[in-house]
């Protein structure tokens, strides 16, 4: 039982870590694009990025389940071409989590970039530096608190997700059974003590994480 407890927690944090790393590299270019574009697709893209904030996770999970299912076009194409089955698999969970936590990475970074004076970018360009050099050397180093907020919130939000995981991952120990699912599972089985262990870990974790974010932002505002 103890081993299963640690296995579940480890899986939870693995999922969160991988999701966060992927989101970091997806979130920065996406936020940069949104912060700098006046294109007509901007509102559409912004809406899509923000959808997970308002959508019940089960809705997202449901559509992902349909998409990933080998009985449907996309799912069967994945399986036939890459031998990849995303339903009830860890990889599927990672993809679901990336989509689900996208706004938590993109929003802080986009806001951070938009709040930087335009003259930083202009000055860097007039010094002969490319967009890429400017982003890397000037823009990102000056929005460190926003980057950290994005990382921490994405990680924490992935740890806390439930609906999406349940819909597309199910409850396979060591593969898709994460802490939030385990709590539900243990309560169903009337194992309140174990449920409490999971719940307490998540509670303490969330508290610490948010406190870190707020302390850092407080320092940043000084």
């Amino acid at each position, binding site marked *: 039982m103890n081993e299963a407890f640690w296995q579940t927690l480890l899986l939870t944090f693995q999922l969160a870590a991988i999701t966060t790393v992927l989101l970091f590299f997806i979130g920065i270019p996406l936020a940069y694009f949104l912060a700098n574009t006046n294109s007509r697709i901007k509102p559409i893209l912004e809406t899509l990025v923000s959808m997970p904030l308002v959508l019940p996770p089960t809705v997202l999970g449901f559509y992902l389940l349909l998409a990933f299912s080998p009985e449907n076009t996309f799912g069967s194409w994945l399986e036939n071409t890459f031998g990849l089955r995303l339903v009830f698999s860890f990889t599927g969970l990672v993809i679901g989590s990336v989509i689900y936590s996208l706004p938590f990475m993109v929003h802080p970074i986009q806001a951070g970039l938009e709040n930087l004076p335009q003259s*930083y970018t*202009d*000055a860097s360009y*007039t*010094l*002969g*530096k490319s967009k890429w050099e400017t982003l890397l*050397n000037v823009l990102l180093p*000056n929005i460190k608190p926003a980057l950290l907020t994005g990382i921490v919130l994405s990680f924490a939000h992935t740890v806390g997700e439930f609906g999406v995981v349940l819909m597309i991952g199910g409850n396979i120990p060591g593969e898709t059974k994460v802490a939030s699912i385990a709590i539900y599972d243990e309560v169903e089985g009337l194992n309140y003590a174990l449920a409490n262990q999971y719940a307490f870990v998540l509670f303490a974790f969330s508290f610490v994480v948010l406190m870190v974010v707020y302390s850092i932002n407080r320092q940043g505002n000084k």
Partner: protein
Amino acid sequence: MMFICLVHGTSIFNFYNMTELRIKKELNFAGGKKMLHIETRIEEGTCVAIMGPSGSGKTTLLRLISGLTDAAAGKIIVGKNTWLDTEKKINWPTQKRNIGYVFQNYALFPNMTIQQNLEYALVRNQDKSIVNELIEVVGLQSLINKYPITLSGGQQQRVALARALIRKPQILLLDEPLSALDEEMRSDLQDYILKLHEAYHLTTLLVSHDKKEIMKMAQQVYVLKEGKIVNTGPPATIFKNTLQFHQLTGIIRKIETQEEVVILQIQIGDNYISIPSTKIDTANLKVSDKLVFNASLESWKKITK
């Protein structure tokens, strides 16, 4: 459209020492849209002051030259290079245009020290000695390891100025660089700009509202209104009717009384002058009073080199 070349002489090389501007761009006004339409030639090594009411297109003109804003139509030829020719679909990106741009709010990068701010501007494989050279010219040796936020406005603007010159630009664009500084600092900075303008043989475009500053810095003035140059000429001509440039501002440093004659020692910028006066005329004055007074050319002698 014909162009009148302002250069004297007939050598073909003179042509290469010019900056030719013909740009069109729509400007958004509170009252609607106006066309910015500038056609001019600037001789290399000149400092041109650009003045005009807000919204007249001063900043837009600098941004168009730098390529930070795209022109609707036009041509920018700097020396031998065509930076922009919309007919031939030539449009060099800002990065490729060899300019130095100094912004009103300095735009120093907060994450870098003064030294790093300057080094960031280096072109790949460029000799680093230019960094130290410029740091010395603007007198910032003691501050190189500090971050911009710890510097005064004047110091920050000196860094910005040095940074803009690292690439040895052909054109220096100054967008109201001194408007946020107090009088004394402004005068210091003007001296630095003049020094650099001459030392690096720059063609400088200076946006400014300050007539005294323009008198001191520029050889040519463009008065902009609603996107057009409505008046141009040397500062003395432009300000003939509006500027009392015989007025000096200074601080009394010493008052010496010799019987009925009083000698005031007055500091003007970095210079001291002694002016004789009478006890009655100076009765209310004391040391460290600030004065505005008229300078007159009652007797003068031309200095020949």
